[in-house]
Protein backbone atom coordinates (compact mmCIF):
# COMPACT_ATOMS: atom_id res chain seq x y z
CA UNK A 1 0.00 0.00 0.00
CA UNK A 2 1.41 3.35 -1.05
CA UNK A 3 0.72 6.70 0.60
CA UNK A 4 1.00 9.76 -1.56
CA UNK A 5 0.79 13.36 -0.50
CA UNK A 6 -0.37 15.69 -3.22
CA UNK A 7 -1.38 19.33 -3.40
CA UNK A 8 -4.56 18.97 -5.42
CA UNK A 9 -6.32 15.68 -6.14
CA UNK A 10 -9.06 15.74 -8.78
CA UNK A 11 -11.58 12.91 -8.96
CA UNK A 12 -12.71 12.49 -12.58
CA UNK A 13 -11.01 13.34 -15.88
CA UNK A 14 -14.09 14.46 -17.78
CA UNK A 15 -14.76 18.01 -18.90
CA UNK A 16 -14.91 19.35 -15.35
CA UNK A 17 -11.96 17.42 -13.95
CA UNK A 18 -9.66 18.33 -16.81
CA UNK A 19 -10.74 21.96 -16.43
CA UNK A 20 -10.06 21.81 -12.70
CA UNK A 21 -6.57 20.45 -13.25
CA UNK A 22 -5.85 23.26 -15.68
CA UNK A 23 -7.19 25.85 -13.24
CA UNK A 24 -5.10 24.47 -10.40
CA UNK A 25 -1.93 24.08 -12.44
CA UNK A 26 -2.27 27.62 -13.81
CA UNK A 27 -2.58 28.96 -10.30
CA UNK A 28 0.74 27.25 -9.58
CA UNK A 29 0.91 24.24 -7.26
CA UNK A 30 3.52 21.52 -7.15
CA UNK A 31 1.38 18.68 -8.34
CA UNK A 32 -2.14 18.03 -9.51
CA UNK A 33 -3.19 14.39 -9.81
CA UNK A 34 -6.37 13.39 -11.60
CA UNK A 35 -7.72 9.91 -10.88
CA UNK A 36 -10.15 8.60 -13.52
CA UNK A 37 -11.96 5.28 -13.25
CA UNK A 38 -12.54 4.78 -16.99
CA UNK A 39 -9.89 3.46 -19.40
CA UNK A 40 -9.36 6.90 -20.90
CA UNK A 41 -9.82 10.52 -19.94
CA UNK A 42 -12.43 12.73 -21.56
CA UNK A 43 -15.46 11.40 -19.76
CA UNK A 44 -18.73 11.30 -21.64
CA UNK A 45 -17.27 13.50 -24.41
CA UNK A 46 -15.58 10.43 -25.87
CA UNK A 47 -18.89 9.03 -27.01
CA UNK A 48 -20.62 12.31 -27.94
CA UNK A 49 -19.53 12.37 -31.57
CA UNK A 50 -22.10 15.01 -32.50
CA UNK A 51 -21.48 18.74 -32.81
CA UNK A 52 -22.39 21.56 -30.50
CA UNK A 53 -19.47 21.72 -28.10
CA UNK A 54 -16.93 24.48 -27.66
CA UNK A 55 -18.83 27.45 -29.07
CA UNK A 56 -18.07 29.41 -25.93
CA UNK A 57 -14.83 27.93 -24.66
CA UNK A 58 -13.05 27.59 -27.99
CA UNK A 59 -15.24 29.87 -30.14
CA UNK A 60 -15.61 27.01 -32.56
CA UNK A 61 -18.26 24.37 -33.02
CA UNK A 62 -16.70 21.04 -32.20
CA UNK A 63 -17.75 17.46 -31.68
CA UNK A 64 -17.32 15.90 -28.24
CA UNK A 65 -14.07 14.03 -28.96
CA UNK A 66 -12.56 17.11 -30.61
CA UNK A 67 -13.44 19.20 -27.56
CA UNK A 68 -11.86 16.59 -25.31
CA UNK A 69 -8.67 16.54 -27.41
CA UNK A 70 -8.39 20.33 -27.22
CA UNK A 71 -8.75 20.33 -23.45
CA UNK A 72 -6.32 17.44 -23.11
CA UNK A 73 -3.81 19.36 -25.23
CA UNK A 74 -3.94 22.19 -22.71
CA UNK A 75 -3.54 19.73 -19.86
CA UNK A 76 -0.40 18.33 -21.52
CA UNK A 77 1.15 21.78 -21.49
CA UNK A 78 1.39 21.58 -17.72
CA UNK A 79 4.08 19.16 -16.55
CA UNK A 80 2.70 19.28 -13.03
CA UNK A 81 -0.59 17.62 -14.04
CA UNK A 82 -0.59 13.83 -13.75
CA UNK A 83 -3.60 12.06 -15.30
CA UNK A 84 -4.06 8.49 -14.11
CA UNK A 85 -6.71 6.26 -15.65
CA UNK A 86 -8.30 3.03 -14.40
CA UNK A 87 -8.17 4.33 -10.86
CA UNK A 88 -11.18 3.68 -8.64
CA UNK A 89 -11.90 5.90 -5.63
CA UNK A 90 -12.99 3.46 -2.96
CA UNK A 91 -13.27 5.46 0.26
CA UNK A 92 -12.73 8.93 1.61
CA UNK A 93 -11.82 9.67 5.20
CA UNK A 94 -12.78 13.32 5.43
CA UNK A 95 -11.32 13.79 8.89
CA UNK A 96 -7.89 12.42 8.06
CA UNK A 97 -8.08 13.82 4.52
CA UNK A 98 -7.31 10.44 2.94
CA UNK A 99 -8.59 9.16 -0.36
CA UNK A 100 -8.22 5.40 -0.93
CA UNK A 101 -7.84 4.49 -4.60
CA UNK A 102 -7.68 1.00 -6.15
CA UNK A 103 -6.06 0.08 -9.45
CA UNK A 104 -4.34 -2.89 -11.02
CA UNK A 105 -1.15 -1.66 -9.39
CA UNK A 106 -2.50 -1.84 -5.88
CA UNK A 107 -4.06 0.47 -3.33
CA UNK A 108 -2.87 4.06 -3.09
CA UNK A 109 -3.86 6.30 -0.20
CA UNK A 110 -3.74 9.88 -1.37
CA UNK A 111 -3.33 12.64 1.18
CA UNK A 112 -4.39 15.73 -0.73
CA UNK A 113 -4.21 19.23 0.63
CA UNK A 114 -7.33 19.97 -1.35
CA UNK A 115 -9.72 17.84 -3.34
CA UNK A 116 -11.77 18.67 -6.42
CA UNK A 117 -14.73 16.39 -7.05
CA UNK A 118 -15.67 16.08 -10.73
CA UNK A 119 -17.57 12.80 -10.72
CA UNK A 120 -20.22 13.85 -13.21
CA UNK A 121 -23.69 12.36 -13.44
CA UNK A 122 -25.35 9.04 -14.14
CA UNK A 123 -28.51 8.36 -16.13
CA UNK A 124 -31.82 7.65 -14.47
CA UNK A 125 -32.46 3.94 -15.06
CA UNK A 126 -35.62 2.19 -16.27
CA UNK A 127 -36.55 1.14 -12.75
CA UNK A 128 -36.52 4.74 -11.67
CA UNK A 129 -39.61 5.65 -13.66
CA UNK A 130 -41.95 2.84 -12.57
CA UNK A 131 -43.16 1.62 -15.95
CA UNK A 132 -45.39 -1.45 -15.85
CA UNK A 133 -44.69 -4.46 -18.01
CA UNK A 134 -41.94 -6.98 -18.44
CA UNK A 135 -38.17 -6.64 -18.32
CA UNK A 136 -36.95 -7.87 -21.70
CA UNK A 137 -33.63 -7.22 -23.39
CA UNK A 138 -33.72 -4.20 -25.69
CA UNK A 139 -34.18 -1.44 -23.11
CA UNK A 140 -31.27 0.98 -23.04
CA UNK A 141 -30.56 4.27 -21.40
CA UNK A 142 -29.41 6.70 -24.09
CA UNK A 143 -25.83 6.73 -22.84
CA UNK A 144 -25.51 2.97 -23.11
CA UNK A 145 -26.99 2.92 -26.61
CA UNK A 146 -24.66 5.75 -27.57
CA UNK A 147 -21.65 3.91 -26.18
CA UNK A 148 -22.42 0.80 -28.21
CA UNK A 149 -23.07 2.65 -31.44
CA UNK A 150 -20.23 5.15 -31.27
CA UNK A 151 -17.45 3.26 -29.53
CA UNK A 152 -18.25 -0.45 -29.73
CA UNK A 153 -19.53 -0.53 -33.32
CA UNK A 154 -22.80 -2.29 -32.43
CA UNK A 155 -26.41 -1.40 -33.05
CA UNK A 156 -28.93 -1.76 -30.22
CA UNK A 157 -31.78 -2.97 -32.46
CA UNK A 158 -33.75 -2.46 -35.65
CA UNK A 159 -36.82 -0.50 -34.66
CA UNK A 160 -36.67 1.97 -31.77
CA UNK A 161 -38.79 4.34 -29.73
CA UNK A 162 -37.14 7.07 -27.67
CA UNK A 163 -38.46 8.32 -24.35
CA UNK A 164 -37.37 11.81 -23.39
CA UNK A 165 -36.90 14.73 -25.74
CA UNK A 166 -33.84 16.18 -24.05
CA UNK A 167 -30.85 16.73 -26.27
CA UNK A 168 -29.45 13.27 -25.58
CA UNK A 169 -32.67 11.61 -26.77
CA UNK A 170 -32.87 13.82 -29.85
CA UNK A 171 -29.25 13.23 -30.80
CA UNK A 172 -29.74 9.47 -30.50
CA UNK A 173 -32.89 9.68 -32.67
CA UNK A 174 -30.77 11.11 -35.45
CA UNK A 175 -27.78 8.86 -34.90
CA UNK A 176 -29.86 5.70 -34.98
CA UNK A 177 -31.82 6.83 -38.04
CA UNK A 178 -28.62 7.58 -39.97
CA UNK A 179 -27.38 4.10 -39.12
CA UNK A 180 -30.47 2.40 -40.47
CA UNK A 181 -32.49 1.92 -37.30
CA UNK A 182 -36.14 2.87 -37.71
CA UNK A 183 -37.00 5.43 -35.02
CA UNK A 184 -40.78 5.40 -34.76
CA UNK A 185 -41.27 8.25 -32.30
CA UNK A 186 -39.87 10.41 -29.55
CA UNK A 187 -42.06 10.64 -26.47
CA UNK A 188 -41.96 13.57 -24.02
CA UNK A 189 -43.98 13.86 -20.83
CA UNK A 190 -43.88 17.66 -20.69
CA UNK A 191 -46.00 19.82 -22.98
CA UNK A 192 -42.81 21.28 -24.46
CA UNK A 193 -39.67 19.61 -25.79
CA UNK A 194 -36.72 19.11 -23.48
CA UNK A 195 -33.92 19.85 -25.94
CA UNK A 196 -32.81 22.77 -28.05
CA UNK A 197 -34.97 23.94 -30.97
CA UNK A 198 -32.07 23.34 -33.30
CA UNK A 199 -31.99 19.68 -32.32
CA UNK A 200 -35.76 19.34 -32.78
CA UNK A 201 -35.24 20.56 -36.33
CA UNK A 202 -32.07 18.67 -37.20
CA UNK A 203 -32.85 15.42 -35.39
CA UNK A 204 -36.60 15.02 -35.67
CA UNK A 205 -38.05 17.27 -38.38
CA UNK A 206 -35.26 16.45 -40.84
CA UNK A 207 -36.13 12.76 -40.56
CA UNK A 208 -39.90 13.06 -40.09
CA UNK A 209 -39.73 11.45 -36.66
CA UNK A 210 -42.93 12.28 -34.78
CA UNK A 211 -42.69 13.94 -31.39
CA UNK A 212 -45.47 13.11 -28.92
CA UNK A 213 -45.60 15.85 -26.30
CA UNK A 214 -47.49 15.31 -23.03
CA UNK A 215 -47.11 11.59 -23.47
CA UNK A 216 -45.31 8.97 -21.50
CA UNK A 217 -44.64 5.27 -21.74
CA UNK A 218 -47.21 3.24 -19.81
CA UNK A 219 -46.16 -0.27 -20.67
CA UNK A 220 -43.30 -2.27 -22.13
CA UNK A 221 -43.82 -5.85 -23.25
CA UNK A 222 -41.80 -8.67 -24.63
CA UNK A 223 -40.89 -12.10 -23.43
CA UNK A 224 -37.14 -12.17 -23.94
CA UNK A 225 -36.57 -9.26 -26.28
CA UNK A 226 -38.72 -6.14 -26.39
CA UNK A 227 -41.75 -6.48 -28.65
CA UNK A 228 -44.11 -3.65 -27.86
CA UNK A 229 -44.18 -0.27 -26.14
CA UNK A 230 -47.41 1.47 -25.13
CA UNK A 231 -47.61 5.22 -24.66
CA UNK A 232 -50.48 7.39 -23.42
CA UNK A 233 -51.32 11.04 -23.19
CA UNK A 234 -50.99 12.81 -19.85
CA UNK A 235 -53.42 15.22 -18.21
CA UNK A 236 -52.47 18.44 -16.38
CA UNK A 237 -51.50 16.36 -13.35
CA UNK A 238 -49.23 14.14 -15.44
CA UNK A 239 -51.56 11.19 -15.02
CA UNK A 240 -52.18 8.94 -18.05
CA UNK A 241 -55.56 9.52 -19.70
CA UNK A 242 -57.36 6.19 -20.18
CA UNK A 243 -58.25 5.51 -23.80
CA UNK A 244 -55.34 7.49 -25.28
CA UNK A 245 -52.99 4.51 -25.46
CA UNK A 246 -50.93 4.04 -28.60
CA UNK A 247 -49.00 0.84 -29.23
CA UNK A 248 -45.72 0.63 -31.09
CA UNK A 249 -44.16 -2.60 -32.24
CA UNK A 250 -40.51 -1.93 -31.56
CA UNK A 251 -37.54 -4.01 -30.45
CA UNK A 252 -35.61 -1.18 -28.84
CA UNK A 253 -36.47 1.40 -26.19
CA UNK A 254 -34.01 4.22 -25.60
CA UNK A 255 -34.53 6.05 -22.34
CA UNK A 256 -33.39 9.62 -21.85
CA UNK A 257 -35.21 10.51 -18.65
CA UNK A 258 -32.79 12.54 -16.68
CA UNK A 259 -29.31 12.76 -15.25
CA UNK A 260 -28.50 12.40 -11.57
CA UNK A 261 -25.36 13.94 -10.04
CA UNK A 262 -22.97 11.32 -8.64
CA UNK A 263 -22.58 12.52 -5.08
CA UNK A 264 -23.18 9.45 -2.94
CA UNK A 265 -19.56 8.94 -1.97
CA UNK A 266 -19.72 12.31 -0.25
CA UNK A 267 -23.18 12.35 1.26
CA UNK A 268 -22.05 11.64 4.78
CA UNK A 269 -19.82 14.67 5.03
CA UNK A 270 -20.71 17.20 2.33
CA UNK A 271 -23.91 19.17 1.99
CA UNK A 272 -25.92 17.62 -0.84
CA UNK A 273 -29.01 19.23 -2.35
CA UNK A 274 -31.85 16.93 -1.22
CA UNK A 275 -33.82 17.54 -4.39
CA UNK A 276 -31.22 17.49 -7.16
CA UNK A 277 -28.65 15.31 -5.34
CA UNK A 278 -25.95 17.73 -6.45
CA UNK A 279 -22.97 18.66 -4.24
CA UNK A 280 -23.76 22.13 -2.90
CA UNK A 281 -21.00 24.64 -3.65
CA UNK A 282 -20.15 28.30 -3.54
CA UNK A 283 -19.10 30.59 -6.38
CA UNK A 284 -15.53 29.35 -5.96
CA UNK A 285 -16.56 25.73 -6.31
CA UNK A 286 -15.94 25.11 -2.63
CA UNK A 287 -18.24 22.58 -0.94
CA UNK A 288 -19.42 22.72 2.65
CA UNK A 289 -15.94 21.57 3.71
CA UNK A 290 -13.18 24.10 3.22
CA UNK A 291 -10.68 21.77 1.54
CA UNK A 292 -13.10 20.04 -0.83
CA UNK A 293 -14.26 21.66 -4.07
CA UNK A 294 -16.62 20.34 -6.72
CA UNK A 295 -17.51 21.19 -10.29
CA UNK A 296 -19.45 19.93 -13.26
CA UNK A 297 -22.47 17.68 -13.42
CA UNK A 298 -21.89 16.36 -9.91
CA UNK A 299 -22.98 19.78 -8.62
CA UNK A 300 -25.80 20.64 -11.04
CA UNK A 301 -26.75 19.24 -14.45
CA UNK A 302 -25.41 21.65 -17.05
CA UNK A 303 -26.63 22.22 -20.59
CA UNK A 304 -23.27 23.14 -22.10
CA UNK A 305 -19.96 21.40 -21.63
CA UNK A 306 -18.24 24.77 -22.07
CA UNK A 307 -19.69 25.91 -18.76
CA UNK A 308 -18.60 22.68 -17.16
CA UNK A 309 -14.97 23.18 -18.16
CA UNK A 310 -15.10 26.78 -17.04
CA UNK A 311 -16.54 25.96 -13.64
CA UNK A 312 -14.01 23.15 -13.32
CA UNK A 313 -11.28 25.63 -13.97
CA UNK A 314 -12.69 27.99 -11.32
CA UNK A 315 -12.84 25.21 -8.75
CA UNK A 316 -9.31 24.10 -9.57
CA UNK A 317 -7.99 27.62 -9.24
CA UNK A 318 -9.51 28.17 -5.83
CA UNK A 319 -8.57 24.71 -4.65
CA UNK A 320 -5.00 25.67 -5.48
CA UNK A 321 -5.37 29.03 -3.79
CA UNK A 322 -6.56 27.24 -0.68
CA UNK A 323 -3.44 25.08 -0.79
CA UNK A 324 -1.14 28.05 -1.28
CA UNK A 325 -2.64 30.49 1.18
CA UNK A 326 -5.54 28.85 3.05
CA UNK A 327 -7.83 31.07 1.05
CA UNK A 328 -11.20 31.19 2.78
CA UNK A 329 -13.14 34.45 2.48
CA UNK A 330 -16.53 35.47 3.84
CA UNK A 331 -19.48 33.52 2.48
CA UNK A 332 -23.02 34.64 1.73
CA UNK A 333 -26.21 32.80 0.80
CA UNK A 334 -27.68 32.95 -2.66
CA UNK A 335 -31.43 32.46 -2.54
CA UNK A 336 -34.05 31.51 -5.05
CA UNK A 337 -36.61 34.20 -5.64
CA UNK A 338 -39.74 34.19 -7.72
CA UNK A 339 -39.98 31.76 -10.66
CA UNK A 340 -36.53 30.30 -10.11
CA UNK A 341 -36.54 26.50 -10.25
CA UNK A 342 -32.88 25.47 -10.20
CA UNK A 343 -30.23 27.93 -9.01
CA UNK A 344 -26.53 27.37 -8.79
CA UNK A 345 -24.30 28.04 -6.84
CA UNK A 346 -25.76 28.19 -3.34
CA UNK A 347 -23.22 30.52 -1.81
CA UNK A 348 -21.13 33.49 -2.83
CA UNK A 349 -17.56 33.82 -1.61
CA UNK A 350 -16.10 37.30 -1.50
CA UNK A 351 -13.48 38.06 -4.12
CA UNK A 352 -14.83 35.70 -6.76
CA UNK A 353 -16.80 36.37 -9.91
CA UNK A 354 -20.35 35.12 -9.73
CA UNK A 355 -21.31 32.74 -12.53
CA UNK A 356 -24.95 31.99 -11.93
CA UNK A 357 -26.76 29.11 -13.63
CA UNK A 358 -30.48 28.93 -13.41
CA UNK A 359 -33.58 27.27 -14.80
CA UNK A 360 -36.96 28.92 -14.57
CA UNK A 361 -39.79 27.05 -12.86
CA UNK A 362 -42.19 27.36 -15.78
CA UNK A 363 -42.05 28.69 -19.36
CA UNK A 364 -41.82 32.49 -19.35
CA UNK A 365 -42.21 34.15 -22.76
CA UNK A 366 -40.98 37.55 -21.62
CA UNK A 367 -39.26 38.27 -18.33
CA UNK A 368 -36.48 40.02 -16.45
CA UNK A 369 -33.82 38.29 -14.45
CA UNK A 370 -32.87 40.35 -11.40
CA UNK A 371 -30.09 39.75 -8.94
CA UNK A 372 -30.26 41.71 -5.69
CA UNK A 373 -27.80 42.00 -2.88
CA UNK A 374 -29.34 43.41 0.26
CA UNK A 375 -31.32 46.20 -1.38
CA UNK A 376 -29.02 46.80 -4.31
CA UNK A 377 -29.85 45.59 -7.76
CA UNK A 378 -26.56 44.23 -9.05
CA UNK A 379 -27.91 42.70 -12.26
CA UNK A 380 -31.02 43.09 -14.37
CA UNK A 381 -31.64 41.82 -17.87
CA UNK A 382 -34.64 41.09 -20.07
CA UNK A 383 -34.90 37.59 -21.51
CA UNK A 384 -37.30 36.11 -24.02
CA UNK A 385 -38.59 32.56 -24.40
CA UNK A 386 -37.29 31.21 -21.09
CA UNK A 387 -37.95 27.49 -20.65
CA UNK A 388 -37.10 25.17 -17.73
CA UNK A 389 -35.30 22.97 -20.24
CA UNK A 390 -32.84 25.71 -21.23
CA UNK A 391 -30.32 26.64 -18.58
CA UNK A 392 -29.45 30.32 -18.39
CA UNK A 393 -25.97 31.55 -17.59
CA UNK A 394 -25.43 34.91 -15.93
CA UNK A 395 -22.00 36.30 -15.25
CA UNK A 396 -21.56 39.05 -12.69
CA UNK A 397 -18.01 40.29 -12.23
CA UNK A 398 -16.56 40.53 -8.74
CA UNK A 399 -16.33 44.30 -8.94
CA UNK A 400 -20.12 44.58 -9.03
CA UNK A 401 -20.62 42.48 -5.91
CA UNK A 402 -20.33 43.67 -2.35
CA UNK A 403 -21.11 41.79 0.79
CA UNK A 404 -24.42 40.37 1.90
CA UNK A 405 -26.88 37.68 0.93
CA UNK A 406 -28.01 37.56 -2.67
CA UNK A 407 -31.42 36.82 -4.18
CA UNK A 408 -32.09 35.85 -7.77
CA UNK A 409 -35.58 36.23 -9.19
CA UNK A 410 -37.31 36.20 -12.55
CA UNK A 411 -40.11 38.68 -13.01
CA UNK A 412 -42.71 38.24 -15.72
Amino acid at each position, binding site marked *: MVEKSVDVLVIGAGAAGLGAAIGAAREGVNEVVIVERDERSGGILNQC*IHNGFGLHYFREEL*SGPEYAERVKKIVHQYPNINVKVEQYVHQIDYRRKEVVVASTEGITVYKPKSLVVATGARERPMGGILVPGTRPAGVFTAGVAQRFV*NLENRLPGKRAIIVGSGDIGLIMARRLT*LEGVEVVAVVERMPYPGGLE*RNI*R*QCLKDFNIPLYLSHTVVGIYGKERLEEVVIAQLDENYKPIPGTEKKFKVDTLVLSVGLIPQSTLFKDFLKIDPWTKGIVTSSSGRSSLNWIFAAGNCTVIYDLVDWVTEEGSVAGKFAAMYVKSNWEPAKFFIEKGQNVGILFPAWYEEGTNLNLYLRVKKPIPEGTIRVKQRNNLIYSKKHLNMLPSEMLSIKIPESKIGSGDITVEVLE
Partner: protein
Amino acid sequence: MRTEEMVCIMCPLGCHLTVREENGEITVTGNRCPRGVEYGRQELTEPLRILTSSVLVEHGELPLVSVKTNKPIPRKLIMQVMEILKNTRIEAPVRVGDVIINNILNTGADIIATRNVERIDVA
Protein backbone atom coordinates in the same frame (compact mmCIF):
# COMPACT_ATOMS: atom_id res chain seq x y z
CA MET B 1 -46.28 28.87 -52.72
CA ARG B 2 -44.52 27.45 -49.72
CA THR B 3 -44.46 28.59 -46.11
CA GLU B 4 -42.37 27.21 -43.31
CA GLU B 5 -42.12 28.13 -39.64
CA MET B 6 -38.74 27.73 -38.07
CA VAL B 7 -36.58 28.96 -35.22
CA CYS B 8 -33.42 30.72 -36.31
CA ILE B 9 -30.24 29.18 -34.91
CA MET B 10 -27.79 31.95 -35.80
CA CYS B 11 -27.70 33.29 -32.24
CA PRO B 12 -29.26 32.44 -28.85
CA LEU B 13 -32.20 34.83 -29.34
CA GLY B 14 -33.94 32.15 -31.40
CA CYS B 15 -36.34 34.34 -33.42
CA HIS B 16 -39.42 32.52 -34.67
CA LEU B 17 -39.23 32.98 -38.43
CA THR B 18 -41.90 32.61 -41.07
CA VAL B 19 -40.32 31.93 -44.43
CA ARG B 20 -42.49 32.25 -47.53
CA GLU B 21 -41.69 31.34 -51.10
CA GLU B 22 -43.92 32.76 -53.80
CA ASN B 23 -43.16 32.90 -57.52
CA GLY B 24 -39.49 32.25 -56.91
CA GLU B 25 -39.21 35.08 -54.37
CA ILE B 26 -38.48 34.39 -50.73
CA THR B 27 -39.57 36.61 -47.83
CA VAL B 28 -38.54 36.14 -44.23
CA THR B 29 -40.43 37.71 -41.33
CA GLY B 30 -39.95 37.48 -37.59
CA ASN B 31 -36.19 38.03 -37.70
CA ARG B 32 -34.47 40.68 -35.65
CA CYS B 33 -31.28 40.86 -37.70
CA PRO B 34 -30.17 40.20 -41.31
CA ARG B 35 -28.56 36.89 -40.42
CA GLY B 36 -32.07 35.58 -39.84
CA VAL B 37 -33.01 36.36 -43.43
CA GLU B 38 -29.96 34.51 -44.65
CA TYR B 39 -30.73 31.51 -42.45
CA GLY B 40 -34.43 31.40 -43.40
CA ARG B 41 -33.66 31.63 -47.09
CA GLN B 42 -31.04 28.89 -47.01
CA GLU B 43 -33.16 26.65 -44.85
CA LEU B 44 -36.11 26.86 -47.22
CA THR B 45 -34.25 26.46 -50.51
CA GLU B 46 -31.28 24.25 -49.69
CA PRO B 47 -31.02 23.25 -46.03
CA LEU B 48 -27.41 22.64 -45.04
CA ARG B 49 -26.21 20.35 -42.29
CA ILE B 50 -22.98 19.30 -40.64
CA LEU B 51 -22.91 15.50 -40.68
CA THR B 52 -21.26 13.63 -37.80
CA SER B 53 -20.80 9.89 -38.04
CA SER B 54 -18.14 7.18 -37.86
CA VAL B 55 -15.82 5.26 -40.14
CA LEU B 56 -14.33 1.82 -39.64
CA VAL B 57 -10.70 1.73 -38.53
CA GLU B 58 -8.40 -1.22 -39.06
CA HIS B 59 -5.75 -2.07 -36.47
CA GLY B 60 -6.89 0.68 -34.12
CA GLU B 61 -7.41 0.73 -30.35
CA LEU B 62 -11.05 1.46 -31.19
CA PRO B 63 -13.11 -0.06 -34.02
CA LEU B 64 -14.50 3.29 -35.17
CA VAL B 65 -13.22 6.80 -35.61
CA SER B 66 -15.73 9.61 -35.22
CA VAL B 67 -15.83 11.91 -38.25
CA LYS B 68 -17.61 15.01 -39.47
CA THR B 69 -17.98 17.19 -42.53
CA ASN B 70 -15.80 20.24 -42.01
CA LYS B 71 -18.46 22.43 -43.63
CA PRO B 72 -22.25 22.15 -43.80
CA ILE B 73 -23.43 20.16 -46.81
CA PRO B 74 -26.86 19.99 -48.49
CA ARG B 75 -29.22 17.96 -46.36
CA LYS B 76 -30.45 16.07 -49.42
CA LEU B 77 -27.00 14.51 -49.89
CA ILE B 78 -26.77 13.09 -46.38
CA MET B 79 -28.01 9.58 -47.14
CA GLN B 80 -25.63 9.32 -50.09
CA VAL B 81 -22.72 10.44 -47.91
CA MET B 82 -23.74 7.85 -45.31
CA GLU B 83 -23.52 5.12 -47.96
CA ILE B 84 -20.01 6.21 -48.79
CA LEU B 85 -19.00 6.31 -45.13
CA LYS B 86 -20.44 2.84 -44.59
CA ASN B 87 -18.09 1.49 -47.21
CA THR B 88 -15.00 3.39 -46.14
CA ARG B 89 -12.15 1.92 -44.16
CA ILE B 90 -9.00 3.57 -42.93
CA GLU B 91 -5.87 2.38 -41.21
CA ALA B 92 -4.81 3.44 -37.75
CA PRO B 93 -3.19 5.64 -36.53
CA VAL B 94 -5.67 8.45 -37.07
CA ARG B 95 -5.26 12.01 -35.81
CA VAL B 96 -7.89 14.69 -35.16
CA GLY B 97 -8.27 16.68 -38.35
CA ASP B 98 -6.99 13.97 -40.74
CA VAL B 99 -8.86 14.20 -44.02
CA ILE B 100 -10.57 10.88 -44.57
CA ILE B 101 -12.35 11.82 -47.80
CA ASN B 102 -11.60 14.93 -49.78
CA ASN B 103 -14.41 17.07 -51.26
CA ILE B 104 -17.18 14.55 -50.60
CA LEU B 105 -19.67 14.40 -53.51
CA ASN B 106 -18.19 17.63 -54.82
CA THR B 107 -19.66 19.71 -52.01
CA GLY B 108 -16.39 21.41 -51.17
CA ALA B 109 -16.54 19.81 -47.73
CA ASP B 110 -14.11 17.15 -46.50
CA ILE B 111 -14.79 14.29 -44.17
CA ILE B 112 -12.34 14.74 -41.30
CA ALA B 113 -11.51 12.68 -38.24
CA THR B 114 -12.62 14.15 -34.93
CA ARG B 115 -10.55 12.02 -32.59
CA ASN B 116 -7.24 10.23 -32.32
CA VAL B 117 -7.12 6.47 -32.73
CA GLU B 118 -3.82 4.82 -31.85
CA ARG B 119 -2.58 1.84 -33.73
CA ILE B 120 -2.44 -1.57 -32.09
CA ASP B 121 -0.81 -4.38 -33.98
CA VAL B 122 -2.60 -7.60 -33.22
CA ALA B 123 -0.01 -10.32 -32.68
